[in-house]
């Protein structure tokens, strides 16, 4: 028998859970904090045993100097352009394909859908060689086309949209059709508004993945001017790997946009992710 009463026990459990959660939170935050303080340190102070948490003098130029070494603004623009276009394209293609799988019946549909599902399981390494040759033959290396078009649709997105659109009553679509709506108008005026949660989940998911993607840009881009942020950071790292303060500054700056968006749209991010899991 426990010596604690039920109420005390409940309280003790809650306290323990709180303590553990806080401990976990510290572990999550520690790397960010370390990067932040290091980003203001001089090259010599960055790595020491025992370390000083705060820099003895604050090197704010760590945040300006990298701009002179690498075209960081350009990286940022490239990332923004590519991720935005990829997201818009995905919304269109996945939305359309999802709609057609959900609400139309045609020959070979189930076979086609099975293929989509199968490709969901294919790691990018499996298709990377032919994809690269294809893009090379199209003359798309070092272009926005090469970065954007192959990422323009995703099996995951099609699947997500199909599942969601299936839940929309067909009556609405038929009513619109009787009212003389064309298929395009039905899509934009009926499907898009009704499937808004799925669309926004997809948008967040695709944007984040693309903003952070590394392997594909690494293959397609060789020129400095076409690099996206992750590539730029990796290239900064390999050129100035001992410039720790600046390296951390660049890391944090390139993470800042995503972190900012996450801070604002936190609820939507998490719900979108959860949606992606539950619809499976």
């Amino acid at each position, binding site marked *: 028998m426990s010596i604690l009463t039920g109420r005390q026990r409940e309280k003790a459990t809650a306290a323990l859970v709180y303590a553990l959660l806080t401990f976990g939170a510290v572990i999550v935050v520690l790397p960010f904090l370390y*990067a932040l303080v290091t980003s203001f340190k001089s090259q010599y102070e960055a790595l020491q045993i025992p370390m000083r948490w705060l820099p003895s003098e604050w090197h704010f130029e760590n945040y300006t100097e990298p701009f002179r070494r690498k075209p960081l603004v350009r990286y940022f623009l490239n990332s923004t352009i590519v991720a935005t276009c990829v997201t818009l394209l995905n919304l269109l293609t996945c939305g359309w394909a999802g709609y057609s799988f959900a609400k139309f019946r045609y020959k070979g549909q189930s076979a086609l859908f099975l293929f989509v599902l199968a490709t969901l399981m294919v790691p990018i390494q499996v298709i990377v060689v032919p994809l690269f040759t294809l893009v090379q033959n199209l003359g798309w290396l070092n272009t926005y086309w090469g970065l954007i078009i192959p990422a323009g649709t995703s099996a995951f997105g099609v699947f997500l949209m199909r599942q969601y659109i299936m839940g929309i009553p067909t009556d609405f679509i038929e009513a619109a059709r009787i009212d003389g709506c064309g298929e395009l108008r039905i899509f934009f005026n009926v499907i898009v508004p009704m499937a808004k949660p799925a669309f926004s989940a997809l948008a967040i998911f695709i944007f984040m993945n693309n903003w952070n993607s590394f392997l594909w840009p690494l293959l397609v881009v060789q020129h400095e001017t076409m690099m996206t942020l992750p590539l730029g950071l990796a290239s900064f790292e390999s050129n100035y790997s001992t410039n720790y303060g600046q390296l951390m500054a660049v890391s944090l700056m390139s993470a800042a946009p995503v972190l900012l968006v996450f801070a604002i749209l936190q609820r939507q991010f998490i719900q979108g992710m959860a949606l992606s899991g539950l619809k499976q």
Partner: protein
Amino acid sequence: MFVAFSLYPIIVTAYLSFTRYDMLTPPEWYGLGNYASLMQDPLFWQSVKATVYYVFGTYVPTWFLALAIALALNREFRLKGFFRALYFTPVVMSMVVVAVIWKLMYHPFGLINNLFSFAITQPIGWLTDQRLAPLALVIMSIWKSTGYFMVIFLAGLQGIPTDYYEAARIDGASGWQQFCYITLPLLKPVTTFVVIMSLLMGLQEFTAQYVMTGGGPVGATRVLALLVYETAFNFLKMGRATAISMILFFVLLAITWVQLRVLGDREEAQA
């Protein structure tokens, strides 16, 4: 477009894996040559080992950790949203940023050795030691991916009607019994998703290894995904690289199939 950029490449990959191809001259038929020579290549087997270590080392702890955190967060209390968002933050970061920061933390004079400086006499080279580097990558990956699966588990937990727990409590079921007989069975579809998803993510991961160790030291962290990249784009052995990726693909298919089978059987048994 879907066909052009997803389906077509898979078929071409399958074809190329039976050829020798250096991208400069047309592919040349090689039969099962690529597969045969891979089977005898110690580098390939080392890579298989590194991959198995990385994937299971990372995701098995991640599953338990993510489920534990999800359970802890699956109640109403202040700061719940705060913890959830905080734990999720590593997920939204690019792997390159995370890898660059952790690389510095693992530096002999970096944060990790500083934290353990009371216990060690000499700075440890986490990423340069053959035995420690795989572990270092695993720890970093657990840090990075737990938040994602936590959110998935949490969503699954919230889908379980609270009536079930109430009924169980009235019947005198303990917390542990409730977990075993209500939570786990009802969470099964979510668990399936988590397992498959994490294997898929794990097998694809190569950024961390590429940035932090370059596959080293002495190939200890050269996972299959990285081996494919090196074989294809450093050594221009496209045929061989595609053969490795086909193996990767079939392993993944097999795991998925087994997983679905096992779960399917269990569900039938329950019904």
